[in-house]
């Protein structure tokens, strides 16, 4: 083995890496200006999962902004959001450039998916399915990067109980899991469904946690009194584990055959 050849290869690699980086940055900026709600939720999902790469951290700014949200159900399948802001100036969505640490707009998430971007401090969510929903509001810069403080997004969330809206369509099959005192009641269940079924799994817990069903990649928060409802179409065959994140153990298995 020749040392110089190795060196050459190393250099070549770094060259490729450097170029790749440049290319992707350009693409990213472009994507941000034409962000669709779908793209965006994926983006944020990434952030939740790992190191923060595409956010603006305001930890070094004096008097960082803050947000508070309150939601009132309208009894007709919707909810009215009242948003209180501190040290934050809303600028019109059309603004394309000039990020300022205390300026930007708001992203509204319904059950973990971005549904709206607004530059007002109130919003009316409508056409929801009856039941519990989580509504979150987070601060975003003009270029749609999220504002972070101490490694966490600057956001606030509330749970609302929606009534008078659309009835949830019934799943083909439904299961329930109850976690009490860090233990799953009745032991480990393997829920067996057929490929193609629409499946609903309701997880109750007496502690705040997050349920994650692998591969189908469903993540839902669970709180005492507010169960996590996982909906999925069973398209992938196999056995899949659902895990309670903070507790770190498996709470049920889903078998799709």
């Amino acid at each position, binding site marked *: *083995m020749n040392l110089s*050849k190795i060196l050459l*290869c190393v250099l070549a690699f770094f060259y490729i890496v450097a170029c790749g980086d440049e290319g992707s940055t350009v693409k990213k900026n472009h994507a941000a200006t034409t962000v669709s709600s779908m793209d965006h939720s994926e983006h944020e999902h990434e952030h939740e999962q*790992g190191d923060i790469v595409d956010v603006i951290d305001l930890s070094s700014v004096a008097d960082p902004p803050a947000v508070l949200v309150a939601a009132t159900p309208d009894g007709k399948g919707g909810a009215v959001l009242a948003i209180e802001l501190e040290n934050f100036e809303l600028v019109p969505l059309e603004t394309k450039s000039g990020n300022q640490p205390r300026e930007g707009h708001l992203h509204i998430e319904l059950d973990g998916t971005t549904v709206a971007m607004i530059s007002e401090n109130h919003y009316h969510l409508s056409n929801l399915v009856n039941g519990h929903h989580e509504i979150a509001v987070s601060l975003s810069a003009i270029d749609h990067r999220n504002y972070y403080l101490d490694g966490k997004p600057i956001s606030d969330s509330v749970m609302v109980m929606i009534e008078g809206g659309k009835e949830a369509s019934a799943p083909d099959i439904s299961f329930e899991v109850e976690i009490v005192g860090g233990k799953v009641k009745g032991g*480990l269940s393997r829920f067996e469904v057929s490929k193609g079924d629409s499946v609903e799994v309701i997880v109750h817990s007496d502690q705040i946690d997050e349920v994650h069903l692998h*591969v189908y990649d469903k993540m839902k928060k669970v709180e005492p009194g507010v169960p996590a409802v996982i909906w999925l179409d069973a398209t*992938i065959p196999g*056995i899949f584990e659902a895990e309670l994140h903070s507790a*770190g153990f498996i709470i049920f298995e889903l078998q799709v055959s």
Partner: protein
Amino acid sequence: MTSLLIFAHGVGGRLDLPLSKWQVAWAGVVALVFSFAALGYFWHRPLLKKLSIGRPIFNVLNRFNLFKIVFRCISLFLFLVVVIAGFIGQDNTVANLAPVTVFVVFWIGMTCASVLFGHIWKEISPWETLGKLVDRLRKDHDESAPRWLTSGWIALAPISVFHWFELAYHDGASPRILGWWTLIYTLGLMGITWKWGWEQARKAEGFGVLFGALAQLSPFRVKETEVHNSRKVFIRVPFVGVSNYETSPAQLAIVLAALGGTAFDGFSRTRFWSEIIFGRGKWELTLFNTIGLIWIVAVVGVAYHLAGKLGSRTTGDSRFSERFGVSLVPILFGYDLAHYFSLLLLEGQAFKVLISDPFGKGWNIFGTATDPINWTLISSGAIAWVQVLSIVGGHLVGVLVSHDRGVEKFELKKAMRSQYPMLAVMVLYTLFGLLLMTG
């Protein structure tokens, strides 16, 4: 966020469906009938050794082998990238390049590649490259390597540690842990190389030893020739090459450890085991899994040891266990394929995605960073068939090899007698392997 995703089995998020009862019954019957046929109806003269030589197809030059150099560079490079990714990439099993590379591309991929193409790990292993570089830096080492190194037993250590991290330790697939463990292993190997040279250090590289044994199943054989410093490549019937191979006790132990590890992986996916570890997290889980792993490896090892003892007594051959150790190699490959085939095809796709952004910096080097994983690439029916066929296939080859060994080493009557314990242990492994896959 280290515990964001915990996988019970290395990196697998999707487990295979249990095999249907009739498939298992069918497979078991074939394995049994074939095993008994081996006792009376097979050939009475060694046959496989001749087949394992094969016929020459082409020569390769040792020097100026550009192909090899390119592969070595790629491999060393990937190795460095993966170790760095382990340390600085996202600390999340599914979002980091290291776990999928170690558990799928390296562990399963190299197993399959060795069986398909021969001992290529010896050519492209980053440790081989690094070891040779260290050799260049330091030409005169202490000639007399200690016994623990020359006997090859030390190679059992990395294999055991690897299995423990993969199957028992609750956070074993964490990128940081993998980064540290790869670094420590590499430094250890290079330390040994520094003192006694790579020729000796290679004996401690357990993965190389294991892949070397599996490579004996390959349809390709490489032989050094005197002429022009070149090597000859032979092509032969697949799987039979192993009949020309002798295992040392240490190698035998490594093969058994790998077999036991894979068996425990299957065992840990049964409902029986998931109910035992149900609700246990963190170190409690690690403890239970460690006990389970040791227990299954011990069962597998003791079964073989007893068969060896019995064989020694009936044939009067004190090296009985080692002589027949080679017949375990195809069984190991059968187990590996049955358990990890779907992992390689499905979870393996994550490699393609993550290599585009190895350090989680938002890069997209190959334009594949956002590709979705196609979880329906292969139907569950096809997976089930591959599982049954590989377990039974591994068993059949094992029986053939063992039979051939018997008639080669002993006169006919003794040869048949020598087969009873070997067949018993192989049937045991196979039925156990099939049983594990019924869930």
